[in-house]
């Protein structure tokens, strides 16, 4: 039987917050650092998105349908592409037109909503699905949660939303002796299939590719294809999940990462019995082997593969719970701009900046972090959030005042009616 290899890339860019001081609370309505966002988008587009998309298109045409890839693009990234680098969207559209590319659904704002609010989670997934369908003409059928966060209950919710499969991390502490290279199912609803990331092989490319002290450096596509064919002789599916920014941004073009990618399909197709496929195709081709029990949320981040990169210390927990404490109030406002800001403040990146796990994964954290210390990140975020809370409460107060007057009128009426009696 033919075996499958799935190449999946995550495309995301956060809305970075500007330096928002205490004195700005209640006076400045704009929270974002447009200059940083614009320059970073431009840089990453030139170094990664545009050249990588061009290469992918070439490869898809060259192999005429036997090279397939998968993307999920967060809503915040799409918004920023439209604003700053619309040519990136065009190149994704070209890729979509080949029919060899699958786009996955995720949370629109790259949020952690699945951990706290099912309602908000659903809304964001629906919004994202609509956005993807409008842009690329296909409604996503497979789901991938922010940072590959998954648990039994999240899986159940996703399945209730009508998705047939979901991507997550092949975390060691969940799998135990089991291999990530098969299809599993959700423990509550077996109809939801699970594709697990092979983190060893994925991280060879994403994190270790340019590391000269790594014993296997330099990594060639030839060597990589040999590992796949030899080590995985009994397995069925290999899932290579990584940030798209691996190509050209995290791993500079000078490391040869694009050359690696250019020759990978050739080596895999010629020297192994693997074929490239997308999650939907893989789910049709292979049968699930067992349900997977995940009582507590897992993710693809850090050594722990849990949610502690975003919700691991007091600062993060405080900011997170304060943010979702106003969810109800935001919904009541029913104001487009307020909802937009609420979504943007939910981006997982804001919480990532407050992470204090400096020792094991500090290098990765530092690379992504615009703040010098997690404390600065927290102060800035809380200042913005305090201002936002004020704005959310304002219209509510007006409404409350209006209600009071109504009540007064009513009581006045009852009194007069009593008198008449």
């Amino acid at each position, binding site marked *: 039987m033919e075996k499958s290899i799935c190449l999946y890339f995550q495309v995301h860019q956060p809305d970075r917050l500007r330096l928002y001081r*205490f*004195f700005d609370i209640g006076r400045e309505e704009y929270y974002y650092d447009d200059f940083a966002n614009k320059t970073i988008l431009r840089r990453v587009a030139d170094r990664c998105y545009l050249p990588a998309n061009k290469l992918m298109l070439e490869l898809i045409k060259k192999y005429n349908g036997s090279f397939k890839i998968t993307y999920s693009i967060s809503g915040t990234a799409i918004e920023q592409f439209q604003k700053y680098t619309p040519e990136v969207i065009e190149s994704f559209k070209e890729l979509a037109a080949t029919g060899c590319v699958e786009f996955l659904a995720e949370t629109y704002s790259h949020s952690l909503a699945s951990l706290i609010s099912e309602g908000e989670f659903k809304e964001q997934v629906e919004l994202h699905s609509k956005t993807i369908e409008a842009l690329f003409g296909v409604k996503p059928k497979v789901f991938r949660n922010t940072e590959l966060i998954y648990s039994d209950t999240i899986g159940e919710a996703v399945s209730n939303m009508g998705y047939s499969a979901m991507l997550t991390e092949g975390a060691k502490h969940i799998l135990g002796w089991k291999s990530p290279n098969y299809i599993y199912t959700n423990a509550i609803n077996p109809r939801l299939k699970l594709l697990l990331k092979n983190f060893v092989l994925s991280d060879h490319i994403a994190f270790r590719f340019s590391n000269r002290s790594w014993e296997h450096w330099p990594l060639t596509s030839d060597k990589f294809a040999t590992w796949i064919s030899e080590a995985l002789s009994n397995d069925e599916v290999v899932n290579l999940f990584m940030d798209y920014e691996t190509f050209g941004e995290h791993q500079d073009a000078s490391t040869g990462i694009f050359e690696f990618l250019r020759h990978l399909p050739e080596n895999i197709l010629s020297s192994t019995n693997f074929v490239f496929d997308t999650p939907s195709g893989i789910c049709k081709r292979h049968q699930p082997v067992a349900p997977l029990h995940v009582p507590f949320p897992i993710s693809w981040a850090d050594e722990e593969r849990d949610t502690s990169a975003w919700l691991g210390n007091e600062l993060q927990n*405080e*900011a997170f719970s*304060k943010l979702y404490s106003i969810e109800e109030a935001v919904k009541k406002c029913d104001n487009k701009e307020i909802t937009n800001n609420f979504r943007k403040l939910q981006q997982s990146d804001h919480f990532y900046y407050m992470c204090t796990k400096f020792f094991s994964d500090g290098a990765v954290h530092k690379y992504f972090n615009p703040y010098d210390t997690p*404390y600065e990140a*927290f*102060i800035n975020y809380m200042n913005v959030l305090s201002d936002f809370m004020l704005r959310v409460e304002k219209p509510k107060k007006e409404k409350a005042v209006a209600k009071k007057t109504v009540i007064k009128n009513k009581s006045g009426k009852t009194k007069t009616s009593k008198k008449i009696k």
Partner: protein
Amino acid sequence: MFGWEFPPHISGGLGTACQGLTTGLANCETEVLFVMPSASGDEDQSSVNIIDASDIETSETCRDVKEFLDKVQFIKIGSNLVPYLDPVLFTEVVTQEQEREIEEFKLSLGEKYKFSGKYGKNLMEEVARYALVAGEIALREEFDIIHAHDWLTYMAGVTAKRISGKPLVVHMHATEFDRSGKNINSEVYNLEKRGMSEADKVIAVSNLTRNIIINNYGIDPSKVVTVHNAVDFQDSKAVEIERGVPEKIVTFLGRITYQKGPEYFIEAAHKVLKRYPNVRFVMAGSGDLLNRSIKRVAKLGISHKFHFTGFLRGREVQEMFAYSDIYIMPSVSEPFGISPLEAMQANVPTIISKQSGVAELLNHAIKVDFWDIDAIADSVYGLLKYPALSKMAVKHGLDEVNSLKWDAAALKVKQVYSSLL
């Protein structure tokens, strides 16, 4: 007069106090020659002559280095006291040591020594070199009284006294016990004690400090005089600022260190917020307890109502006062404490700890024990809830502050001088 800093380049209240005092002395016809380690040239010299110690070349007039060393030998704290040597050997060792030192001094002081004038790593070394330059200045200049501010300049003051034979006054703006609590730096303590023992008079900025000097340093009470600091508000104008937040604002402004008692402010804020939500707390400044404070605030879950501004400069401080409805100084130990006076001058009612020198002067500020967070919370609540109380505090507070003049303090200092002539 030996100081360490002078406005505009200051890191604490010492420079401001020196300026106020010298201006006051000039007004009562006392000429002041102010020596500081590193002048920038933009100091206000209208009422004081500033000598930059970095400009003094020592080798020229210090021809007889041996004589100089004899006079200042005390500086080398006990370094010549080698135990278990008989008198003959001891003399030999001392002679050798002195010859070596003469060479060294010529080497290091043949050229001008550049002082950084900052509170940094080589502080002790700078303090010693400053003392040597002071000896040089004592030989060159003419004066009647030597006045040294804080331990950094005591060696300089004592050297000048040894060389010139003029009376020495040392001024205690803070003791090592105020700065470090129980874990005092014994080197600093010894310098302070030596300075005060050698001095003819000791000026303390408050009775609180005077008591510490008498009890903890064993200085003869008849030598110690209290002269309270004052404030000068000539150049500070009322800052008008548009407030962005509807809530009342309670402020802590100062270094976030053990001495200032930031944790009592946080705990009191927590108590107040439980009862009276319509208020925000601001902690302005930075220091070694900043990160711990942020963590504590996050843990208490009040960070949406508790803000950090970081270090504030010049005008920002005035803005912060203009923003505030209540100012709290919960210092664990504050020899004087000028900031409550600034707050009162800006029409902000203040709560100060009884463990501050300024509490001896003020009648129209609320005084609490620094550790009594219930009392602090009570006072905040009272000032917020009963406008009459804060109105009263503001009105009389302003009069009280305006009556504290440097001229009056300078007159007292002059009396101290006269008693020595």
